């Protein structure tokens, strides 16, 4: 996140969108923003060093990730980026990369496959990144009350839960607004500053 006032430079901010495979992350990003492609090809993660013998390897071993991101430009010279976090575990290094300087995260949950979003919730809790849970209400999915979902996800009372339709622009707008309000109220509380 960067606040710029000089040289016509844009201020930038980013929000992460996480959740299990097929839960609707890309749909959510596409509902509210312009989608653009991003190629990342990163060197082997630090975790391989010492495990894999890299001595004498001429060509670098790289991990290729092709991903999309969402971009919303506001008249105030602010650009907000929405990054969907890659699902597979071998891309954890990308999560660390994406998390730096992020406002917070939306964990998108599907009530039919609740366990799919546990890894995302664990990650953000562990890293002290503020997040909210958005329950994507598919047409045929059983509806639950947020309190039931809170219990199913073992979420503390401090984490907001919102119901949404990832295809609907206004609904997605409500999700993002809820996240930003949550972050603002959270960062005003001095006792939580150490977490974020």
């Amino acid at each position, binding site marked *: *996140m960067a606040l710029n006032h000089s*040289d*016509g430079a844009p*201020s930038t901010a980013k929000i992460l969108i996480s959740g299990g495979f097929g839960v609707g992350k890309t749909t959510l990003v596409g509902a509210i923003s312009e989608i653009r492609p991003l190629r990342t*090809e*990163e060197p082997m993660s630090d975790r391989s060093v010492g495990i894999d013998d890299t001595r004498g390897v001429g060509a670098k071993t*790289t991990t290729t990730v092709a991903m999309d991101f969402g971009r919303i430009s506001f008249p105030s010279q602010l650009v907000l980026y929405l990054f969907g976090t890659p699902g597979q575990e071998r891309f954890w290094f990308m999560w660390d990369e994406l998390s730096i300087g*992020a406002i*917070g995260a939306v964990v998108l949950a599907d009530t039919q496959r609740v366990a799919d979003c546990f890894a995302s919730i664990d990650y953000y809790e562990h890293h002290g990144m503020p997040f909210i849970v958005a329950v994507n209400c598919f047409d045929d999915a059983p509806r639950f009350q947020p309190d039931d979902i809170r219990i199913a996800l073992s979420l503390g009372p401090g984490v907001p839960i919102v119901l949404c339709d990832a295809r609907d622009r206004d609904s997605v707008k409500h999700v993002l607004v809820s996240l930003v309000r949550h972050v*603002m109220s959270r960062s005003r509380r001095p006792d939580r500053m150490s977490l974020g």
Partner: protein
Amino acid sequence: MTRHDGYGDRWFDRDAGPVVRPYALTRGRTLPSGGESFDLIDVVVATSDRMPEHFRPGPEHRRLLSLCRRPTPIVDLTSEIDLPLGVVRVLLGDLISEGLVRVLSTQKQPATDQRLLRMVLDGLESL
């Protein structure tokens, strides 16, 4: 575009895949020379297009320079130039070392700036 040359179908241009492995553009370097670490949403801007005499810019260096004539977030540069992020970082590192590009902002901590949060909130609510 796939072209036909009369000797059977052959691949040209993008259909053939990259002609050079990505890190060949950086001569094998995977980290920026100055040790900088850039965030995706850091904003960079070209400060000069007068090349120092000893600097031999590659075509990608030149493309990056022209793309950041106006202050531009690194993620947009990367998307526009269609090279992997790791490669763009190394090339930007070269341009910064040569004084041709400047990073306008770096944010290494989670974002808690209330003013910026307010800007984001106002922006979203006005959508």
